[in-house]
């Protein structure tokens, strides 16, 4: 296709069926891809989009589980130690408080943010957004909440913390006897939930809902016409999408 055609189409038809790689700015036409496949930029290799089956329900289940595990993970001891008949144990919160009490308020704030606050707010905001979507309930603040989730992405560091727990256990081994607390199991569970959430969440689909106010459980319909929605053509778009879904099922 000649570039002038691309330009014509992109400008005169719909912009939603085109996308630009956010690492090299190359423009592509979005194509429907099979379930469990990911699309990468042919020029720079950046991950573009993916097809995630049933993304809203699966991610909601995972984030709710993560939220439940959050409380034991934070409140129960992660590791304990015994030395010369004395014993002590540390929770996630105690680690933050220890630094704070020594006067390292900036470092303690950093640890609080990366190990407790950001993962919690991430799970909470995502849960609220996904519940709103599954109830077909649309509000402008749902959009703000999802934007907030985007801004926090990358600052939660549970997996780094887990390696930190391992390193501190090794460092203490010759000094005292170390044992694993109940909180660590909850912590690992929460970590697994956040990892699985990144694997099951299709942000593009969530944004499409937030843009149009329609819950469309189709990963990526082939025709771009679905996203040419005008605010008053919602019903028609919805039926189009479901038709596409059935088509896809028949083909399989």
């Amino acid at each position, binding site marked *: 296709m000649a*570039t002038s055609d*691309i330009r014509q189409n*992109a*400008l005169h038809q719909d*912009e*939603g069926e*085109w*996308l*630009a790689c956010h*690492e*090299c*700015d*190359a*423009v592509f036409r979005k194509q429907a891809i099979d379930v469990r496949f990911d699309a990468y930029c*042919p*020029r*720079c290799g*950046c991950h573009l989009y993916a097809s995630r089956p049933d993304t809203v329900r699966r991610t909601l289940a995972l984030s709710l589980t993560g939220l439940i595990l959050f409380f034991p993970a934070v409140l129960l001891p*992660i*590791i*304990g*130690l015994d*030395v*010369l008949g*004395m014993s*002590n144990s*540390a929770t996630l919160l*105690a*680690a933050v408080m*220890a*630094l704070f009490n*020594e006067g*390292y308020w*900036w*470092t*303690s704030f950093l*640890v609080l943010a*990366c*190990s407790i606050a950001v993962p919690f707010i991430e799970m909470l905001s995502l849960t609220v957004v996904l519940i709103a979507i599954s109830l077909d309930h649309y509000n402008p603040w749902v*959009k703000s909440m*999802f*934007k907030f989730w*985007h801004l926090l992405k*990358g600052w939660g*560091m549970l997996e*780094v913390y887990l*390696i*930190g727990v*391992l*390193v*501190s256990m*090794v*460092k*203490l081994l010759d*000094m*005292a006897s170390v044992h694993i607390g109940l909180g660590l199991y909850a912590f690992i569970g929460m970590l697994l939930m956040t990892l699985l959430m990144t694997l099951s969440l299709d942000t*593009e689909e969530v*944004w499409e809902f*937030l*843009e149009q106010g329609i819950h469309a459980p189709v990963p990526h319909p082939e025709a771009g016409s679905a996203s040419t929605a005008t605010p008053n053509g919602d019903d028609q778009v919805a039926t189009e999408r479901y038709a596409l879904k059935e088509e896809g099922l028949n083909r399989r």
Partner: protein
Amino acid sequence: MMDIRSARSLGMASCSLCHKLCRFVDDDEIAQYCPRCGTRLHSRYPNSVVRTWALLITAAICFLPANLYPIMVVSQLGNDTPSTIFGGVVTLVHHGAYGIAAVVFIASLVVPFLKLIGLVILLIKIQRGWHLNANQCTSMYRMIEFIGRWSMLDIFVIALLAALVNLGAVARIEAGPAATAFGLTVVLTMLAAMTFDPRLIWDKEVGDE
């Protein structure tokens, strides 16, 4: 050969937050907003190079005290032994925990250093027009963005040890002044990687004029 055009040359920009491709007039004086999420649109991150330089230089300055001051102080039965980041790695090697020593060494010394060097190379490539392979540069950028968070490892270890080893006169572990500097280094290099716009690497590529 595939005909690849950049969004900028087609009069479009993808939203920096939700990645929606929007129509865009290439003039940063006019405020344009993403119709989907309401974020201000930019074809490239504004002042990306200057901001990244500023953050990198600050991070490099913080990296010095982070390595020279003790990051933790172990006091056992009245003896205070301060140890730097590198000292902690040496202690681990002495105890025979080579794997863990390598993890700590890579996470807290190699990674921040390579991040600083890597971003400086990318910035100079953009400013001076070095002929480096754009694909390799993007891979390097992706790597820098991915591994940056792992430097927080040492901070977490110190927080845990300070909370755990708190047995009065028998044994105590306290954080040292390097902890603040090191935390700053990690956050600043992460912010530098976030403000750097990888699209700048591709802007001068052939076939995209």
